């Protein structure tokens, strides 16, 4: 069920009230950066993608029917935009250099939470995380999306079913197949020896 406050803000925003939309952005910014970061694994792209998500959401706010929650609606935009980024990245990977296009001081810097670990442990963890992410991304899109949503983002079956437009039973069986494929690849990569 949509939050009545979100519904009201979305209605205001659809009439062109940008302050109302700003309030929605403020509420959901962290959640959306989270999913973009999960998929992209890169702060700069996650911020870019989040910005683009909210711009798209604002442009299409009149299409939000307020039967589903605003979060699931904007989440769907975010995950689609993230995958667009992934596809673009694949095409442009060899021209773009992360060293050349760096984030500036105005850009938000995000930190991983494992600050208490030593540098070596951090590095090992980081490499392992990169591997896990690359395995998830190598799965067919419908499977990788569902793993990101359930196992990384921790959404409920109901939320996933709303976002993906499928019923909860299908979510569960798709999740099973996705995990099965992930586990096969993880074993091949000796990720969890």
């Amino acid at each position, binding site marked *: 069920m949509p939050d009545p406050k979100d519904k009201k803000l979305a209605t205001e925003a659809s009439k062109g009230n940008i302050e109302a939309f700003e309030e929605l952005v403020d509420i959901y910014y962290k959640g959306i950066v989270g999913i973009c970061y999960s998929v992209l694994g890169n702060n700069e792209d996650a911020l870019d993608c989040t910005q683009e998500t909210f711009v798209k959401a604002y442009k299409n706010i009149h299409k939000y029917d307020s039967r589903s929650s605003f979060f699931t609606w904007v989440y769907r935009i975010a995950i689609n935009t993230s995958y667009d980024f992934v596809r673009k990245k694949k095409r442009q990977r060899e021209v773009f250099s992360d060293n050349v296009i760096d984030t500036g001081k105005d850009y938000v810097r995000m930190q991983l939470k494992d600050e208490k670990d030593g540098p070596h442990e951090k590095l090992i963890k980081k490499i392992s995380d990169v591997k896990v992410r690359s395995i998830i991304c190598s799965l067919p899109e419908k499977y990788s999306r569902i793993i990101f949503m359930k196992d990384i983002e921790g959404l409920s079956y109901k939320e996933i079913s709303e976002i993906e437009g499928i019923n909860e039973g299908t979510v569960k069986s798709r999740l099973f197949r996705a*995990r099965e494929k992930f586990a096969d690849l993880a074993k091949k990569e000796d990720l969890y020896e």
Partner: protein
Amino acid sequence: MIYTYNKHNKHNNKYYGGKMVKKRFKYCKYINKKKLTELMDNEISNVDKNRLYEHLDSCSKCREKYRGMLESMDIIGSIKNDRDNFVSNIKDEEKDLAVNNVIDAIKNDSYVSSKNQNKALSGNRPKRVFAGAIAGICIVVFAIMIIGVSRDFGVFNFMVHTGESEEQEIAYDDKTAIKAPEENQVPRGEKERTAAESVPGQEDEKSDFVDEEVAFISMKIYDFLPEYSYTRLDAKMRSVLNYFETKNNAYEYIGLFAYPSNETHSIASGLEEILDNAEIKIITGENSQKLLEYISVSEKESLLHGFEQLEADFVIILIGR
């Protein structure tokens, strides 16, 4: 082997004229993919959980079928345990800044879209659509030609951009092909000047560019299409400009390296709107030789790679002061 009908195994086996054909094991009411998923997520009821384990103890078929997944449950669990490593964590003050950036982007984007709407309402929409389609076809044709020709850059000639039509530009290029590259470049802001005025040694810009810092943005043409383009461009441009600012290096020139087309002008004006006071030089695809002289070998290779391998339609080059 011949079996007689037996009501206890009627669901698992099929009988054809008294002969039993063993049905492939498929479904089991105690355990299935959905139940196992719930088990992994710890969202299964205790009753179902107990029933599932009891069944697994007694049914070898189910154990065999789901053995792989049951063995992998700890792998799935480990992703969940490491969830925090995949999740970003931004501070509140950083978030506020980012939210402001989003709202700025929306406002800028609304400004551009409303401008586009006004243009569309002026009654020229069919013409604009037609012109866009022609421009698109031209770009595809030129892209194919240039990719073919780019294998041998020795054949490129330098061409002055004077704001004339493509045909005139190409004709002009033919006439001036033998001239030295640096004699021919005209900044975009001076395009009203005639070619004759601008040609003879106005300014040797090559020296300004040598050994300067160069950043690239390579984009496919769809990055410039309405609705999508300006936002994306804006964000990417901003990150590049920030890069220069952090190095105390204000950008001085922005070269738009593109295949010659009418769209190039609209893109350049779009860029000018986004980047206040930026001087944007349009250097058409056939002028690549001149541009390539400005940049170092490795970056040149990236540029060519961008065009050849990734089929980028535009490369925007920012040159630091």
